């Protein structure tokens, strides 16, 4: 599973890292550290990643590949 974190729309709600701390890492300001990039979701973390994506008020995380 591969996801993209939108560079402009992430505004630091931090929901992604709450639901999927092994997938989404926050920077020192509390924004997704990988914003603007695509990342691979580690195996076994898919469900957590989906919860993180769905709870993002900005819809800043989108699915690139299942």
């Amino acid at each position, binding site marked *: 599973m591969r996801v993209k974190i939108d560079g402009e*729309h992430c*505004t*630091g*709600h*931090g929901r992604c*890292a*709450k*639901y999927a701390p092994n997938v989404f890492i*926050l920077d*020192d*300001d*509390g*924004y997704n550290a990988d914003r603007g990039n695509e990342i691979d979701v580690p195996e076994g973390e898919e469900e957590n990643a989906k*919860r993180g994506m*769905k*709870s*993002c*008020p*900005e*819809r800043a995380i989108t699915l690139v590949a299942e």
Partner: protein
Amino acid sequence: MNETRADMEADPEVAPEVLKARFGRDIARDFDLDDPMFNDRFDEVLTFMVNKCPISFSKVGTGYHLVNTNEQVRRVAQDWRTFSSAKGYMPNRPEGLPYLMPEESDPPMHTNWRHKLNPHMSPKVIATYEEVIRQDCNVLIDTFIEKGECEFISEFGALLPGWAFFKNVLGVPIDDLAMLVEGVEQGTFALPAEERPAHMARVFTYLDTHLKWRATQPKRGDVIDTILEGVIYDDGTEAPWDHKVSILVDLTFGGIATTTFVMSSAIHYLAMHPEVRQQLIDDPSLIENAVEEFSRVFPPVIALGRTCTRDVEVAGTEMKEGDFVMLTWGAASRDPRAMEEPEKIDIKRETILHSTFGVGPHRCIGSNLARLELTTTIEEWLRRIPEFSLREGTAPVYVTGFLRSMRELQLVWPK
């Protein structure tokens, strides 16, 4: 469910005479955030609006649109070029109220300030305040636990957020908290609205004096020093003094006027639902999720406004350049298009999507602090006072405008 203005106009349930009979006014075409009916029938009105009125209109003052669905609220909130914050977030803004930075500005000015301020409010920094906040919860509970009763707002809910914010973030004495809370409350809800600027002026004067005093003191490396240091705007000018004061006002406003409502509503809900209380006592790891659900259904900021910078269409409604648009966060957080059974309060909800902390670049800068205050409050309250209920014959007292607040909550428990 209606998706556009045309759907709404064709829906017999949204006909003007039907709305007047049901709500006392045509809430689709003549809504008023300050109407006491909205205060009294808050959940019913928001649910009706999100389902039936993707967009509604108010004729109060110069009038404003309200955008009510999750998707459209997000779209408008993220598109700051078309929907500007620079003319303020209040509809029919009273004369003489200074603009608050960075909330009432747009990028790049807004971005300059947020880059400076965000590090002070990040999850990592906020987490270091946990112990002090936990102690403060207990100091407050100690003052009334033996009585077997309390008025939650004045004895806990209006105090803890102020203490947490003043002690940890601003470093100002908590003795002046009552005056500031009063100033902020009256500055928000006083009627007629023309009285509000005078109340806000007290808050400005106090914080202006505090900032001037701090400028003479050794640096502490805190958020006040960051504000004093200032930023250079893109046109090469330095941020003026009044912008700096307004940042302090904005932070104080957000830090003390809002979390109280989520906190009080959560405690009220737990007083009324012993079974949910027991679930949280049995498994405190559920509390964080419960806080998220309580934030979704008990929004202190009902709606904030933007000004159209050009003609634009939203949900089939033409808006003109200069029109004022309210983003109804409270409605967007209960949109059945975006979540299952939004009217149900479920602390075990799998994913919780809400707009309580706003959407877009102006996301509430204090969201991490608010979550910590709420989680810690519920943890400590349930540990110290596991059994409690609403005093018989009483009911919570609410006040609602573009913010919602609770004024009174009488609780009792076995001594």
